[in-house]
């Protein structure tokens, strides 16, 4: 009965794969823009926080403890990292887990387009939003409070990309571990507080006591914070910091890919 083999089966089964992926991306961009909550926490909140801190007069004064720099100078990289944490750990995991939980990924597996297209689109969009948030924080820091733009832009960009990669990997790992969207929201709120701490949201990494600082340096955001700080002051981020971020990204991506379940 295999003679029933039909003509259409031998024709290309998908519309041009590229155009199908573009359609997925377009629709996910639309959906992303329909989440005002996520957009606020990722894009607006870090810069608002930076502005509030910048309005405190003492934070705009040079202090000897910070080698002649101002508190506000340290908070620009913190705001940059905060946007990333919001994107990768607060906003993204419930979306991805929800897609699995609601059977959206399964539904897509029955079409010629793989459900990974959906996940890739969401991860990329959150990454872009985090970078947009970083640009906004840097612009407001520069215009509002005279915080110098990065002295080593290339090094800064490299550190920024590695930091985004590591936070997106971490967010993906959360989705792999959490069975439900609720569970992922619960786990991510713990992880994200921890990450905010290591990124220096409460105390800038540069002001942490020595032992704590040594430990924090080995976390992706502790390393990111130092790398951004160095590049901001005109130097190249050290291999140690870039290495820590790269290693975390690689390890966490590997785990996320291994542990992820499609249903």
């Amino acid at each position, binding site marked *: 009965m295999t003679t029933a*083999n039909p003509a259409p089966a031998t024709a290309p*089964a*998908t*519309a041009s794969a590229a155009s*199908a992926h573009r359609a997925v991306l377009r629709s996910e961009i639309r959906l992303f823009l329909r989440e005002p909550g996520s957009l606020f926490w990722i894009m607006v909140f870090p810069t608002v926080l930076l502005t509030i801190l910048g309005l405190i007069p003492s934070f705009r004064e040079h202090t000897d403890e910070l080698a002649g720099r101002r508190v506000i100078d340290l908070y620009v990289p913190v705001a940059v990292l905060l946007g990333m944490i919001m994107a990768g750990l607060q906003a993204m995991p419930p979306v991805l887990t929800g897609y699995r939980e*609601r059977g959206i990924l399964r539904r897509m597996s029955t*079409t010629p387009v793989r459900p990974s297209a959906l996940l890739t689109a969401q991860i990329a969009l959150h990454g872009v939003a985090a970078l947009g948030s970083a640009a906004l924080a840097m612009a407001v820091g520069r215009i509002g409070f005279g915080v110098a733009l990065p002295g080593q832009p290339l090094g800064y960009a490299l550190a920024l990309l590695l930091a985004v990669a590591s936070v997106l990997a971490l967010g993906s790992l959360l989705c792999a571990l959490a069975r439900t969207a609720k569970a992922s929201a619960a786990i991510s709120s713990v992880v994200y507080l921890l990450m905010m701490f290591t990124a220096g949201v409460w105390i800038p990494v540069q002001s942490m006591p020595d032992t704590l600082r040594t430990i924090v340096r080995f976390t992706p955001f502790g390393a990111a914070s130092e790398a951004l700080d160095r590049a901001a002051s005109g130097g190249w981020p050290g291999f140690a910091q870039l290495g820590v971020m790269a290693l975390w990204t690689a390890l966490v991506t590997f785990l996320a890919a291994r542990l992820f379940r499609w249903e």
Partner: protein
Amino acid sequence: MLVGMAIIEVDGVRKSYAGRPVVDGVSFAVDEGEIFGILGPNGAGKTTTVECVEGLRIPDAGRVRVAGLDPVADHDRVTGLLGAQLQESELQPKLTVAEALELYSAFYPDPADWRELAERLGLHTVYGTRFAKLSGGQKQRLSIALALVGGPRVVVLDELTTGLDPRARRDTWKLIEDVRDSGVTVLLVTHFMEEARQLCDRIAVIDKGKVVALDTPSGLIGSSGSSTVISFTPSRPLTDTELGQLPGAASLEREGDRIVISGTDETVNAVISLLARHRITAHRLRVSEATLDDAFLDLTEQAV
């Protein structure tokens, strides 16, 4: 009926979850252009069986072919010619009806006109409505539309009319018949007898992971032990000796004054002439054909 080509072949498929067999050696072949039903009680393994056809599950043993292709190994080609409506699958909550239809039609090389499809399913009035705001029936109709939007050769519909009101259900049946008439093969999973009887050319009854019967709806009804039931209240009591040996009678029961006999058409004729001979009036005389329900209950009880 002319024997068409089998477009879906399921041969000795087994699937266990955690050591518990859910599908236990299921075989059937669906001819091109027919509506083939899979009927069975909840948990019988219907959904798992069609998930193997859709390539969503890999059978532990056995062979599945769709248009001669392996749904797992040839996933990309099979998904291009098979449209699926899954049980309990949702869409992105904030995606609108029109966006969903447009998106899914972009997945296929030669899609159907999604606007026309939406109009036939009565979805054109809710183009701008987000998935999360749709009623159960609208969600169901959208999911049927998405199964058809790729212009498939085979559609697999799992519990297609669950959640629809009777009118929408009948409209959907009509649509499915039109789909079949346009040359698309339909594999329909259901636990609605009426739906199976109305729509299906052939039905496989599955119980506890096995095919317990495979026939046309009328074939299944005819195979049921007692196909006709006659019941009446006689104007005067009738003794068992008076009733005697009725031809074809399978059983005789008394419910108070009422007599219930199941048997064949021949039994009915014999009862009527018997009553005439004794000049007995039969009050509230009822003759009922066995239904697919009876056949189904017979079949699934046998498998216990």
